């Protein structure tokens, strides 16, 4: 079942990237997708214990999270822009190293949290040690944004429903 899903995924990507719909290109796409599925299907979705239904739910919910993340990136980029361009901005810079504990259990959830924190300007994940994230934050304002845990809550809603 997983193999078939991987095949469909690869074939979909092939169609998007090739942009040709004649029989020759489609056949080539099917052949190469089958080949890749056979030799490397173990590398996709390492954790097979979760059902395909759950995966589908994640895929449906992810765009919502992505749009929210884009909005957050936009907001905090404005903050950085203000810091960089305004003459008084330099006085608001107050770098600090923040440590937060995360409740996320899965590796992917933690990866996503760390990447999202780094993507929103003003905060960079320095290190993940077990369930503790070391974060460098550029000003008071951005440190508060990390500590309130809104991002973590959204990730756990999308990816770890019922596992916490």
């Amino acid at each position, binding site marked *: 079942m997983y193999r078939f899903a991987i095949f469909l995924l690869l074939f979909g990507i092939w169609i998007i990237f090739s*942009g040709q719909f004649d029989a020759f290109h489609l056949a080539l796409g099917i052949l190469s997708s089958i080949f890749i599925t056979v030799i490397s299907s173990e590398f996709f979705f390492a954790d097979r214990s979760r059902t395909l239904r759950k995966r589908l739910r994640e895929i449906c919910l992810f765009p919502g999270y992505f749009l929210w993340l884009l909005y957050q990136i936009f907001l905090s980029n404005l903050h950085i822009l203000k810091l960089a361009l305004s003459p008084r901005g330099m006085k608001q810079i107050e770098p600090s190293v923040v440590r937060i504990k995360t409740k996320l259990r899965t590796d992917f959830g933690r990866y996503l949290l760390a990447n999202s924190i780094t993507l929103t300007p003003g905060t960079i994940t320095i290190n993940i040690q077990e369930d503790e994230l070391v974060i460098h934050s550029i000003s008071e304002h951005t440190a508060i944004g990390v500590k309130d845990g809104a991002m973590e809550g959204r990730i756990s809603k999308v990816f770890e429903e019922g596992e916490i």
Partner: protein
Amino acid sequence: MVLNIICITLVSLGILFFLGGAVGILRFPDFYTRMHAAGKGDTISIFLIFLGIAIYQLHDFSVANILVAGKILFISLFIMLTSPTSTHALIRAGYEEGLKPWIRKPTKGQPDS
């Protein structure tokens, strides 16, 4: 016409964010804070610029153009995946080498945080 205005607005916004990043690199006090400006002003500005280009592609509506627009959006998605990773790698290398983050010296009247 409307499409053109949207494209121009998006691309100019992207360029504005790039400017912020560039000025930030020059003005911020130390390595870590400079990485804030360098590593991430890019993500939103590249996303905005590519969104503008993708919308521009849809001027004459056809399947081929939609595919091209999709590919352009894919590029920005890949940049959004890889850019934080490289920023993180640089910052972590600095941190593990023992580079001390710059901290504002407490001024008079303000409590030491």
